[in-house]
C-alpha cells in the first residue's frame, strides 16, 4: 500500500500502475488480423477508378490494403485501415443537374405561356422554377459523408480506449446527473471494484480527468466527458429544447425525434422506462459502418462508456431523469445497439 508524500493519503493500486509501468500487465502490442485478405475479396482494385473526387481517395486506401498481404499489424494501423467503403457522392451532382434543369424548364414554360397567351400554364412554370431553385440552393450547402465523420472520430476514441486499457478499470460507468441546463454530461468510471456506488457521488465540482479521493474509494476514478455529450448539445439545438425541461414520459419521444429525424444518426430508437432503470434499442442508420468500427476497434469504450450514438441516448436520459445512471450493459450487434441502464442508488420507489 502506498501513500502520497505531500498529503499522506492512500494511493489506489490502479493509480500506482500509472506511475510504475512495470506494474501494468503486459498487453498485446500487435494484433494478427486478416482484414487485408477479406478486403481484397470485397473491394476489387478497379472500384476506385469508377468513383471521382474525394471518394476515389477513400477507395484508394482500400486498394492499398487489399494489395498488402495479411500480416501482423498494430492496433493503430488497423484504425487507419478502418474506412474503406465508397460513399455515394454522385447523388449531389444529380441533384444540381435536376435543379438547373427545372429552373430552365420553368423559365421556358413561362416564356412559352406568355407567347402563346396561356396564362394558366405559367403557374406550372413558376412551380418548376421554385422547385429547381430550392434544389440548387440546398445542394450548395455542404454535406459530409459518414466516412468522414468516422475518420474524424476514431483517433479520439482510440486515445480513450488506450487510457481505459492502460488504467484497466473494469467497473461499470456511471453517467452523472446534470444540475444546470448548461452542464456537460459527464461519465465516471470508478477505479476500484464497485458493484453498488453510493447514490450521491457529487462530482459536479470536479474538473479533472483523474479524480483521487483516498477517503472514499468510490470517488476515485476517471471523470470523462460523455462520448455523446456534443451530439446531445447539437440535438438540443436542432430540436430547440433542453432535455432537463422534459419529464420522464416525454423524453423517450424527444430522443427518438432527435436521433432519427434531426440528427439522422439512427434509423429507429426504442426506449423503455422501468422502475429499475431505462433501456434503449437503437437501430443503426447511415452511420452503421462507424458503429461497427467503434465496436471493433475500441471495444472497451463501446462496452464500458457506450459508443457516441448510445451515449447520446444515455446523456439525454440522464438529463431528463435528473439521476445518476449506471451503464449495466452496452452491446453492439450487426446494425443494433442495446443499452441497459440502472438507477444509481436503487429503483424509483426506493428513492422517492
Amino acid at each position: 500500500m502506498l501513500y502520497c508524500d505531500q498529503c499522506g493519503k492512500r494511493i489506489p493500486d490502479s493509480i500506482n500502475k500509472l506511475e510504475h509501468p512495470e506494474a501494468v500487465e503486459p498487453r498485446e502490442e500487435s494484433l494478427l488480423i486478416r482484414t487485408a485478405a477479406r478486403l481484397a475479396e470485397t473491394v476489387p482494385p478497379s472500384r476506385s477508378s469508377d468513383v471521382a473526387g474525394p471518394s476515389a481517395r477513400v477507395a484508394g486506401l482500400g486498394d492499398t490494403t487489399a494489395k498488402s498481404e495479411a500480416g501482423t499489424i498494430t492496433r493503430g494501423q488497423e484504425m487507419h485501415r478502418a474506412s474503406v467503403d465508397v460513399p455515394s457522392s454522385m447523388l449531389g451532382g444529380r441533384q444540381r443537374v435536376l435543379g438547373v434543369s427545372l429552373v430552365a424548364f420553368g423559365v421556358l414554360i413561362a416564356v412559352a405561356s406568355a407567347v402563346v397567351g396561356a396564362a394558366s400554364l405559367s403557374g406550372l412554370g413558376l412551380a418548376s422554377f421554385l422547385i429547381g431553385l430550392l434544389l440548387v440552393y440546398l445542394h450548395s450547402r455542404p454535406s459530409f459523408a459518414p466516412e468522414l465523420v468516422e475518420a474524424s472520430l476514431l483517433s479520439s476514441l482510440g486515445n480513450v480506449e488506450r487510457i481505459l486499457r492502460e488504467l484497466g478499470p473494469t467497473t461499470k460507468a456511471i453517467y452523472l446527473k446534470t444540475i444546470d441546463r448548461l452542464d456537460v454530461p459527464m461519465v465516471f468510471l470508478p477505479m476500484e471494484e464497485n458493484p453498488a456506488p453510493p447514490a450521491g457521488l457529487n462530482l459536479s465540482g470536479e474538473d479533472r480527468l483523474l479524480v483521487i479521493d483516498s477517503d472514499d474509494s468510490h470517488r476515485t476514478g476517471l471523470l470523462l466527458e460523455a462520448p455523446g455529450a456534443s451530439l446531445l448539445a447539437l440535438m438540443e439545438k436542432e430540436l430547440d429544447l433542453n432535455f432537463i425541461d422534459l419529464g420522464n414520459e416525454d423524453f423517450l419521444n424527444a430522443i427518438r425525434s432527435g436521433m432519427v429525424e434531426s440528427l439522422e444518426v439512427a434509423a429507429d430508437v426504442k426506449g423503455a422506462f422501468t422502475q429499475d432503470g431505462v433501456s434503449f434499442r437503437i437501430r443503426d442508420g447511415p452511420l452503421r459502418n462507424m458503429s461497427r468500427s467503434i465496436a471493433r476497434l475500441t471495444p472497451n469504450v463501446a462496452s464500458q462508456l457506450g459508443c457516441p450514438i448510445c451515449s447520446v441516448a444515455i446523456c439525454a436520459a440522464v438529463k431528463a431523469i435528473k439521476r445518476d445512471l449506471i451503464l449495466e450493459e452496452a452491446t453492439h450487434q450487426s446494425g443494433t445497439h442495446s443499452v441497459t441502464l440502472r438507477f444509481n442508488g436503487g429503483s424509483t420507489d426506493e428513492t422517492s
Partner: protein
Amino acid sequence: MRLVERYVLSYALAIVVSGLLLMVMSIREIEIYYAVYLIEFLVSLELVASFRRSLGRNLRPIIIVFLFGFAYTVVQRILQILG
C-alpha cells in the same frame, strides 16, 4: 429517405397538385399561384423545422427572396389599381 429530401419531395408534390388545381379552376393570375406556392413553402418548412432548426436558418435567404417576390407582385397590383 433523408429529412431534406422528404421536404423537397413533399413540397414539389404539394405545389404541382395545387398548380394543377388552380389550372382546372381556370385561374389566370400569376400572383395567386405565387401566393399559394409561398404559403405552401412556409407551412411545409415550419413542419420540418420543428425537427431541425438549422434547416429553417439555412433556408432563410430563400424565404427572403420569396417574400421579396411576393412584395413585388403586391406592389405591382397596387400600382395597377391606382393607375
